[in-house]
């Protein structure tokens, strides 16, 4: 007996046929998460918006070519977004989160508690920047986007064990840096 198509498959079939309502639904459902991920990775809303457009255009092309995803549709979207970010960084020679430093608050006139919070965030940013690209990617996908090890592994094209190892090293590095800062 043939299995029923999943809601995503039905939706994408309508997208393949060029149904405007289905296209709008797909964009409304998935673009906020992809945009958020891209904004966190690049730290620039304009670039994130551009890359979101690129990602969804690639999705359209893949849907027309009837390419299939290996894990989940969302995981597949993140993988396309991940590749788009890697391409962007390769093209521009920038590294993720570096740009966050540019938006660092340095308001000397701010109250003490605000200045303390800003300083703490700056420390976290520096700690994130100290991670390798892959470690930072795992931290963002696991804790920023809430994806499973399996999904992160599929997005990054790695084994689940490799992702767990990257996460382990990343978290320990973050803790070490943050504790050192406190001392």
């Amino acid at each position: 007996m043939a299995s029923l198509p999943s809601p995503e498959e039905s939706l994408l079939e309508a997208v393949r046929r060029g149904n405007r309502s289905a296209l709008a639904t797909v964009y409304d459902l998935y673009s906020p998460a992809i945009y958020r991920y891209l904004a966190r990775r690049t730290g620039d809303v304009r670039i994130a918006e551009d890359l979101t457009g690129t990602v969804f255009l690639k999705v359209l092309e893949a849907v027309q070519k009837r390419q299939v995803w290996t894990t989940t549709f969302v995981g597949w979207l993140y993988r396309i977004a991940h590749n788009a970010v890697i391409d962007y960084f390769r093209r521009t020679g920038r590294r993720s989160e570096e740009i966050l430093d540019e938006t660092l608050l340095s308001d000397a006139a701010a109250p003490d508690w605000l200045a303390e919070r800003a300083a703490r965030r700056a420390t976290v940013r520096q700690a994130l920047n100290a991670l390798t690209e892959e470690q930072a990617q795992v931290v963002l996908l696991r804790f920023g986007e809430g994806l499973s090890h399996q999904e992160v592994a599929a997005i990054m094209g790695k084994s689940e064990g490799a992702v767990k190892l990257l996460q382990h090293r990343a978290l320990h590095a973050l803790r070490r840096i943050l504790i050192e800062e406190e001392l």
Partner: protein
Amino acid sequence: MTRRSSPEYLDNEIADLIGAELESVWAEIPPRPESCAAANKAAFIAAGVRLAGEHRPMRVLSLRVFRYAAIFAFMLVSTFAGARALSAQSLPGDTLYPVKLSLENADRLFYESDSWQSQQEARRLAEVLAVAAYGEDASVSFVATPTRTEDGRWIVGNVPLMVTAEQSLMLGNQCVRNDNTVRIFGQVRDGAVYVTALTPSCFYLASR
């Protein structure tokens, strides 16, 4: 159950400790500009509609094209066959006679040979004889081998050729190579052919 000493447990513990701080850093990203999001959405929908049009199955397109092509071909063949059938029996002077000549000229592209040319010339001569027999008028051009009667007149088949003295001399002294054939231009009237010009076969064969 996860053991307290396992890497997974330690990871979760660390993640709990620094999770809020990570969130606060990520939350610093300004909210998505609505206008950009709307423009991107519109572009996405337009691209989706366009790509769907480009990837529309060729079978549907080819079926439609094939249907129109078949109708067009059928009309073309019908028109061609109808014109051929209607004009087949026409004679010089008839409205459809030029159509008949045009179709035969088209046939020349496929069938031209000496025997085909001879058949065509025989057909033209038969048409002239028929027009003369019916007593109709028509301008004609045909190839024939005129013969001279005992009383000095020229005929083709049973149809008299009305020629000038000069033309009669030309026919009598014709320098044609073997068969004494000439191309005759003239007017069929009252059962006779009034010759306006003659071309000896040594010329028209060369120009064929």
